[in-house]
């Protein structure tokens, strides 16, 4: 009954532990959700199962056979199909051809026969194309059969990727963020499709997505990963209430992490004396509402390729204010920052900075007006030394600037001025990025995921630095996963949902009412999700004991219940099943 058994899976990339002894069970006919913050190891787990990455330790058993040493295509032929977070359709082939490849891979393969048009090849070809048509029809995608896959909008491409995976007759389907970048309407269609797939194709699924609504609605059971470790597992409704999960998503520090050896991470920072910094003409009081807005964004829309990621974005940052952008992954926060700093071209809308219209200007010209953008991943040059990095920034800054200010703010960097940036620790690199931005003496600093992948102690110090900046009169717009820390320094926060600004709250309001936040991250669907326990697929409730008697195949949900109980009581699931059976006889 257990279709996929993962035991103690460990994966390391260099020094980073991507997966740390993760174990997982997937039953036949089950939809299993896998959630967790960025970098939790969800995609790595997928890569391990599909054979793209080989684990350092641990076992994978699929259908009672080990997957050790099996190459990706062998696993595919054994019934593991997957989709990709970044679309991986074969763009120059038609949709029908895309679906035919996995069908061929299962069946007859004869290159010579194909080239000369041997009867068997012709037959196989006809059979494959018939199957393609049937699958496309079943998923209501038939009208796209002869379109080039690369020409379709992203939402359709996502559904075709699922169709392609299904054309392999998989028994296990791995879905990696199928809802990423989809708007609300497309997500609804995807949801319908997933239910359709489960009912018609009799396939088990492992689903990774940041759209909690979707996960909570389709999944029978949810595993939560955080920093490569299994954090929690349970029914969707339980997961939503689990304080550990909420903490992982909202960035409440784990007590054990916070107790890290601080002396090891000794990152002292001294604040440059207010008089010495010429940048702050007047140390503005935070959020002086009398002043005109420094940054004003109205009706902004932007995206990549076919994908419109953000629309109708309206936000305002006043001089000396710290504003946080929070919301689930893929909600459009990073894209908004990129559109503001000119890295990507806005499709519509207006951006005014310091009273000037900067919509569609080149990024370096916007930067010269005093808007600094520290991108996600910091955007440093790994082979350049710290000193050279800062000098480069000084040279391209406005007028003559010297690097002393930066070293004053981050004395730690002064010790390492000759070292190549790529060899520094993550926290030090983030300091270099901040220092580089500070040298240009920006009026507005935009920081994207400043704390990503950093230890909590360093994160705290970086946030303290933001507070210092505010005192000097620099406005800050930050995108942050660690919401709690962000709210400590922020005056206001915009909550992003599905590519637009859902709400605007003051930091105080959000801190007071944690439910407001939890809803934006974890969705509200689970409250309304129907109980999936022990239904027989037609929606009729069946007594679990009865099912065990009349059929060898037990629905996944029932099995899950049995297993849960077994774990609670410390007995095997079989023992409980027998006990139930005997109970029902009496």
């Amino acid at each position: 009954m257990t279709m996929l058994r993962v035991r103690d899976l460990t994966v390391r990339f260099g020094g980073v532990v991507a997966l740390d002894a993760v174990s997982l069970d997937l039953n036949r006919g089950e939809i299993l959700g896998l959630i967790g913050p960025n970098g939790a190891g969800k995609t790595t787990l997928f890569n391990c199962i599909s054979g793209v990455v080989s684990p350092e330790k641990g076992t994978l058993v699929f259908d009672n056979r080990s997957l050790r040493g099996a190459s990706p295509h062998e696993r595919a032929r054994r019934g593991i199909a997957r989709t990709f977070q970044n679309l991986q359709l074969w763009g120059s082939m038609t949709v029908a051809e895309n679906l035919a490849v996995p069908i061929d891979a299962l069946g007859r393969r004869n290159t010579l026969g194909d080239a000369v048009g041997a009867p068997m090849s012709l037959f196989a070809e006809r059979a494959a194309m018939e199957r393609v048509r049937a699958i496309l029809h079943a998923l209501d995608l038939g009208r796209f059969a002869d379109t080039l896959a690369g020409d379709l909008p992203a939402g359709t491409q996502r559904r075709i990727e699922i169709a392609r995976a299904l054309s392999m007759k998989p028994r296990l389907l791995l879905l990696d963020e199928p809802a990423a970048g989809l708007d609300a309407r497309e997500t609804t269609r995807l949801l319908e499709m997933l239910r359709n797939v489960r009912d018609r194709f009799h396939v088990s699924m492992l689903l990774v997505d940041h759209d909690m609504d979707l996960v909570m609605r389709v999944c029978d059971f949810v595993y939560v990963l955080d920093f490569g470790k299994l954090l929690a597992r349970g029914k969707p409704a339980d997961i939503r209430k689990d304080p550990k999960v909420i903490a992982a998503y909202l960035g409440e520090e784990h007590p054990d992490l916070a107790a890290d050896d601080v002396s090891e991470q000794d990152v002292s920072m001294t604040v440059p004396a207010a008089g010495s910094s010429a940048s702050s003409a007047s140390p503005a009081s935070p959020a002086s509402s009398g002043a005109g807005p420094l940054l004003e964004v109205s009706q902004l829309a932007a995206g990549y390729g076919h994908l419109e990621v953000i629309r109708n974005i309206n936000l305002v940052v006043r001089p000396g204010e710290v504003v946080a952008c929070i919301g689930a992954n893929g909600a459009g926060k990073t894209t908004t920052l990129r559109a503001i700093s000119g890295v990507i071209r806005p499709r519509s809308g207006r951006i005014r900075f310091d009273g000037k219209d900067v919509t569609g200007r080149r990024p370096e010209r916007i930067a010269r007006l005093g808007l600094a953008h520290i991108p996600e991943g910091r955007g440093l040059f790994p082979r350049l030394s710290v000193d050279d990095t800062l000098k480069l920034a000084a040279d391209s800054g406005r007028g003559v600037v010297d690097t002393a200010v930066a070293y004053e703010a981050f004395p730690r960097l002064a010790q390492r001025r000759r070292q190549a940036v790529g060899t520094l620790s993550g926290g030090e690199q983030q300091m270099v990025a901040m220092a580089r931005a500070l040298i240009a003496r920006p009026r507005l600093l935009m920081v994207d995921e400043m704390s990503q992948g950093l230890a909590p102690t360093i994160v705290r110090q970086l946030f303290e630095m933001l507070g210092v900046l505010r005192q000097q009169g620099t406005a800050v717009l930050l995108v942050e996963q660690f919401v709690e820390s962000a709210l400590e320094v922020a005056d206001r926060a915009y909550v992003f949902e599905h590519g637009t600004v859902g709400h605007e709250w003051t930091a105080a309001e959000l801190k007071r009412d944690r439910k407001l936040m939890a809803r934006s991250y974890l969705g509200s669907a689970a409250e309304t999700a129907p109980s999936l326990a022990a239904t027989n697929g037609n929606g009729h409730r069946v007594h679990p004991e009865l099912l065990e008697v009349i059929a060898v195949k037990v629905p996944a949900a029932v099995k899950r219940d049995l297993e849960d109980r077994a774990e609670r009581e410390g007995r095997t699931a079989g023992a409980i099943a027998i006990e139930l059976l005997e109970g029902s006889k009496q």
Partner: protein
Amino acid sequence: MKKGYLRRFVLAVVAFAALAWIPVGLDVGLQFDAALALVWGLCILSLVLLTGYVGQVSLCQATFAGVGAYAAGMMVSTFHAAYLIAVVVGVVAAFALGLLVGLPALRLKGITLAIVTLGIALVFDRYVFQDHIFDWFTGGSGGWQVDSATLAGIRVDSSSHLLAAYEILLALFCVVALLMVNLHESGAGRRFRAIRDSELAAATMGVNLTRYKLLAFGLSAAIAGLGGSFYPLVAGSVSPQPFWVFTSLQFAAIAVLMGVRYVPAAALGGAFMAFVPDVLTRYGHGTFLNKYSYDISYDWFQLAVGVLLVIQLILLPDGVWGDLRGRAHRTWSALRARTSRRVSVA
């Protein structure tokens, strides 16, 4: 499906019939160019398979052709084998080398693969084709001389029967081209194209990357080897010069110029490579308006390739054949739409 195979077969026959009598009645020099065009055409066809279909880069196609040429020359000169046998040995030798070159391609892609294949081309150029250790294979500094040969009972050689060589080469070219187009439209071709578009997706959708990448390199080398093994026949001798590194680069450049994803582009490219330099040396010098003397010799050919490549990449990004074909398709469908509307109105 069957219809597709039949249609493509008819097209190949028509292409053969149309091209077969082009060199008839031309002087020996141009007949030589025509036959040589097919040799180079086969080499470029091998790149259409490897780069156009499977997306792998190779800068050593001339090496494969050279191995085919030397192997054929050796068979004829040392072992006095029939030319048919010589061609088979040439193709097999190139196929084997192709498999070997394919091994690093399992790990590498893009620019690194280009550099590695370029290195292989350099090594063969310098240390195999021009080294005395391999005299048994290359025939020493003079190379192999092939004065007369018969292929399936027909006398084909450079001295007086170039036309026969041309017809046989053309038939072979059409057959290989037909097989390749068939492949492109069938299951195996879809797997090739899947590797080109996304290796990751191909592997996780059940395509055996090792097998199909090696197969692609082997088949591609075999096609280049087939072309090369006819070189001694057409030119009468083999020497290292036609198969040096620069020829490989030229194959790549001209394949891209003409449209690396299209089979007919290979014929265009071969003709371009064979005819243009010769025509330039023949007619490229004289006096303009009885006043200005000019001399556009072979050297100008290299320059022309470079300049044309730049122009093509800007104006015809899908290659000369690819873009013209695309335009013709669009015009045709627009015309059809217009006529059908007119009919429906009437």
